[in-house]
C-alpha cells in the first residue's frame, strides 16, 4: 500500500475527459514522477489531490484516509503540500513573511488568534524560516518584496514555503520551469538532499527529462487523461509506447 492511492479517478470538463480512470500508487519515501504531453491532465490530477477539484468518480486516499470532500487547508494539515505550476506566493509580503506563514500553519494549526503577540516572541519560527532560506540560497533576499523577484526566485520561494512545513507528501508541478540551468541543477540537488535527509515522499510533474531522470524512482506517463505506463526510469526510456506519446514528440 502506498502513502497515496488514487483509484479510478474520472474528471470531465464539459465534453473533455481530462482524467479517465486514473490509478496511481505512490510509495512512501520515493520520488514519483508524472510526465506527459501538454494537456495530458497532470495538473488536473494534482488539483484532485489537494481539494481544488473534486473528481466525478473514484477515490483518493492519503495514508489510509480519504481526502475527497476535505477543504484545502485540511488536506494540507494532513501533510500534503503543493508547489503550483505558476508560482503562488504572497506577493505583497516580504520573502521572510512568506516563509513564516507556513511555519505558523505547521505549528499552530489552521487558526490561532495571535493578535497581540509580536514576532520578537517567535524565536523558533524565525530560526526555522532563516534556516530554510539558507537552504535555498535566498537568505540575502529575506527582506525583499516578493513581487519584485524573478520567476525562478518565486518558484524557489514557493518550494521553500512547502519544504519548511516538512510535509509527508510534496507535490511539485513543474518546479524548474522558467529557471536557468544553474538554478535547475541547484533545485535538483536540493530535492535530492531533502529526499535523503527527511521522510518526504515527492510527486513531481516535469517536462525537463534531465530533472525527471535524476530524481525519480518511478515514473507514470499520462496521455490524454489516461495513464499509459508506470515503470522504473530505465524501462521508461526504451518503452516504444512512451516514445510515441511523449518522448517521440520531444525528439521530433
Amino acid at each position, binding site marked *: 500500500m502506498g502513502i497515496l492511492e488514487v483509484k479510478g479517478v474520472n474528471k470531465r470538463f464539459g465534453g473533455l475527459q481530462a482524467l479517465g480512470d486514473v490509478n496511481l500508487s505512490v510509495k512512501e519515501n520515493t520520488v514519483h514522477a508524472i510526465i506527459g504531453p501538454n494537456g495530458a491532465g497532470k495538473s488536473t490530477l494534482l488539483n484532485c489531490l*489537494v481539494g481544488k477539484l473534486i473528481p466525478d468518480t473514484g477515490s483518493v486516499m492519503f495514508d489510509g484516509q480519504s481526502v475527497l470532500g476535505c*477543504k*484545502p*487547508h485540511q488536506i*494540507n*494539515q494532513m501533510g500534503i*503540500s*503543493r508547489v503550483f505550476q505558476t508560482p*503562488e*506566493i*504572497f*506577493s*505583497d*509580503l516580504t520573502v521572510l*513573511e512568506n516563509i*513564516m*506563514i*507556513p511555519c*505558523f*500553519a*505547521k505549528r499552530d*494549526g*489552521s*487558526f490561532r*488568534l*495571535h*493578535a*497581540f*503577540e*509580536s*514576532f520578537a516572541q*517567535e524565536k523558533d519560527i524565525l530560526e526555522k524560516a532563516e534556516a530554510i532560506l539558507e537552504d535555498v540560497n535566498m537568505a540575502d533576499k529575506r527582506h525583499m518584496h516578493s513581487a519584485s523577484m524573478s520567476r525562478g526566485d518565486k518558484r524557489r520561494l514557493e518550494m521553500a*514555503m512547502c519544504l519548511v*512545513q516538512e510535509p509527508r507528501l510534496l507535490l511539485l508541478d513543474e518546479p524548474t520551469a522558467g529557471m536557468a540551468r544553474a538554478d535547475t541543477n541547484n533545485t535538483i540537488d536540493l530535492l535530492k538532499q531533502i529526499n535523503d535527509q527527511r521522510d518526504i515522499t515527492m510527486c513531481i510533474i516535469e517536462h525537463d527529462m534531465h530533472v525527471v531522470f535524476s530524481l525519480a524512482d518511478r515514473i507514470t506517463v499520462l496521455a490524454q487523461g489516461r495513464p499509459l505506463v508506470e515503470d522504473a526510469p530505465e524501462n521508461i526510456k526504451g518503452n516504444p509506447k512512451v516514445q510515441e506519446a511523449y518522448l517521440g514528440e520531444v525528439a521530433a
Partner: protein
Amino acid sequence: MLGLNFRDRSLFFIVIALTVLAPFILNPFPSESSLAQFNAGYPDLMQRFVIFGIFAIGFNILFGLTGYLSFGHAAFLGVGSYAAVWVFKLFTYNVLPAIILAVAVAGLFSLLIGYVSLRRSGIYFSILTLAFAQMSFALAYSVLSNPKFNLTNGETGLQVYADDPQWLHRDSLPDLPHLFGLSMRSNYQLDIGAWTFNFNVGYYLCVVIMLIVFYIAIRLFRSPFGMMLRAIKSNQQRLNYTGLNSRPYTLAAFVISGMYAGLAGGLMAAMDPLAGAERMQWTASGEVVLMVILGGAGTLIGPILGAGFIKYFENIFSKINDQILHQWFAFLPDGLEDFLVFIIHPFIGKGWHLTLGILFMLVVIFLPGGLVEGGQRLGKLFGRRKKTEDAAKDAANTPAE
C-alpha cells in the same frame, strides 16, 4: 518600549501630541478675526474627529488588511449608540458601563452578520453587508418602534426622558452623561490674548480611548495575526493550500472592526445622549469607506487623517455661504466678484459633498495610497533635495586629486 519599534513608537507619540494639543492646533486664528470660521477647536467638532477616527481605525483593520470591503459598518455604530442610550435610560448616566455594553453588543451583532456575509468574498460580500445594514436600518427606523415594543423610538430617535427608571442614578450626580460625576460637557475655556481655547472633558475621554484602541491596532498590525490578514488580501488561495483556514481569520477581523464601530457609537451617545436610525444608513457606511481610502487604506495613520480631513471639510465648507464669499472677494471688481461667487457657490454650504467628491476623485486618481502616500512623496521630494545638496557639498569638499 511598549512593544513597538522605533517608527511605530514615534508615530504613536506624534498622534498623542496631536490629539492632546488639538485644542491649540485646531484654533490657530483669533476668535474675532475673519478667519475664525476655519477654526475647528470646538468641543463637539473635536469629539467627532476622534470618534470617527476610532471608527475608521477599526474599519481599516478589516478593509486595509484583508481587503474585504464592508458597506455595512454603520449598522454596528448605530447598534452601539442604541445600547449606550439604553444603559442611560435604565441604569445610570455613567458612560463607562454604556461604552462597555456598546462594544459588547456591536461585537455580537457583527459576529452574526460577519458569519453569514463572509461565506462570500469580493463584491458579493460587500452587497451582503450592505443588505444587512439596510435591514438593520429599517428595523431601527420602523419595525422595532411600535407602541407594544419600542426599542429604538423610530424617527424621533432614542433619548433619555425624565420618567425613565435610571435605577442607579443619584441626585448628587450630573443629569447628563458623566464619568464618576465628571460631566462630559464640562469645559474649561482658556483665553490668551485674542485667542480662545476649549478643553472639554468629553473630548479628552474620547482621546484617551482612541489612544488605547490605536495602540491596540498598531500591535495588531504588527502581530502574526496582522500578517495572516495581509496574506489573505495578497493570496487567499495560497493561504488555504498552506494549511490555514481563512474564514476564522476574516471573521475575527470583522468582529474586531465591528467592536471598534460599536465603541465609536457608544462614545457618540456618551457625548450626546441620543441615538437615531440615520446613523445606520448606507451613506454613513460609505463615509467610513471614504475616510479610510482617502487617508490611506492599510496604513496606520491613514484612517485618522482621513476621518479628520472629511469631518473638517464637512464642517468648514458647509458653513461657508455666499455672503462670506462676497466678503472675501470684495477687493475684486463687482462683475468679477459676482462671477467668482457664482462659480464657487455650488461647492459650498449644502454643496460641500461636491467638493468632497472632487477631492476624493483627485486623491484616488493621483494618490492611490491616500494622504499618507502624499505625505511620503513630499518626504521623498525633500529627502532627495537634501541628498543632492549633501552630494553637492561633498563634491565641493573633496579636493581634486
